């Protein structure tokens, strides 16, 4: 089995473990409020922790220059999505900005 398939099976098992246990236990009691709060905050913390280093870190170094196209793409997608513009439209606009800046630079 190739490495990629191993990753996929591992991801499938990890994901199923987030879905099935609570569902099958038919949780009679609601989760404690602090645990609910934590589970609500996890994606709020994980998604920026994922996105910002992809935009700001290149080859182990901080890339903060104004001539760095992904920085402008990030501003565009964030502002559009925050204003309620459709997710895919926001992403497409940011991708277009990055492509344009790269073509110009």
């Amino acid at each position, binding site marked *: 089995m190739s*490495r990629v398939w191993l990753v996929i099976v*591992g*991801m*499938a098992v990890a994901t199923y473990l987030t879905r099935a246990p609570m*569902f099958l236990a038919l949780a009679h009691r609601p989760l404690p409020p602090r645990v609910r709060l*934590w589970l609500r905050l996890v994606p709020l913390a994980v998604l920026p922790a994922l996105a*910002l280093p992809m935009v700001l870190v290149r080859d*182990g170094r901080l890339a903060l220059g104004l001539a760095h196209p992904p920085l402008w*793409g990030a501003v565009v997608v964030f502002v559009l999505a925050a204003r309620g513009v459709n997710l895919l439209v926001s992403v497409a606009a*940011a991708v277009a900005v990055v492509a344009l800046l790269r073509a110009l630079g």
Partner: protein
Amino acid sequence: MREGLVASLALVPSVFVYGSVFGGLAVQAGLTPAQVLGMSVLVFAGAAQFVAVPMIAAGTPLLAIIVTTYVVNMRHYLMAATLAPSFRGFHRLWLALIAHLINDESFAVAVARSRPPDARVYLGSALAISGAFVGGVGVGVALGGLVERPERYGLDFAFPAVFLALVAVQLRRRTDWLIAVSAAAFAVLLALVLPGNWHIVVAGLAVSALGARVLPVEEP
């Protein structure tokens, strides 16, 4: 069940396009069509799949990818716990299968209709959403192979762009901003010193756990 299907129709086009964008980008990143479709059926979690593909392409260690997937999907615990009481009386085999279809969109549809959510509304929605997603991935896989040199069109930037858009729509309270900005700053610092993309899991878990400990509990 029909009620859930119909209520989800408005979401079907965007889930379909989201799936096809994923399919196209994943093929671009070097996965085979079978791997992309296999992942979409077996994992069936859009955000986590978007997270995993660039990590796979970058040769990130297996364990880091799997743990990151787990953390990105931890929100399912909350949805599973909320949905579970509505499914009393279903056979365990069905429950094991239905659990796999838990997704953000169907959860939102079912909870918006009634509290506690209705099992049949939820099921109808889950069928519509999973069909739209996997169908979209199939189309994306077919189209994705047609684009050469994706970075020329900025397509590599689509991954962080999706994550940023998903964050932007979740920031409602001032404390949400506090969590997101702290996690981002901590992750950037860690990314400069830690190998193998562990900064995502470490920053994500540490900041959310700290937030859950010190922030006031308020039910939505």
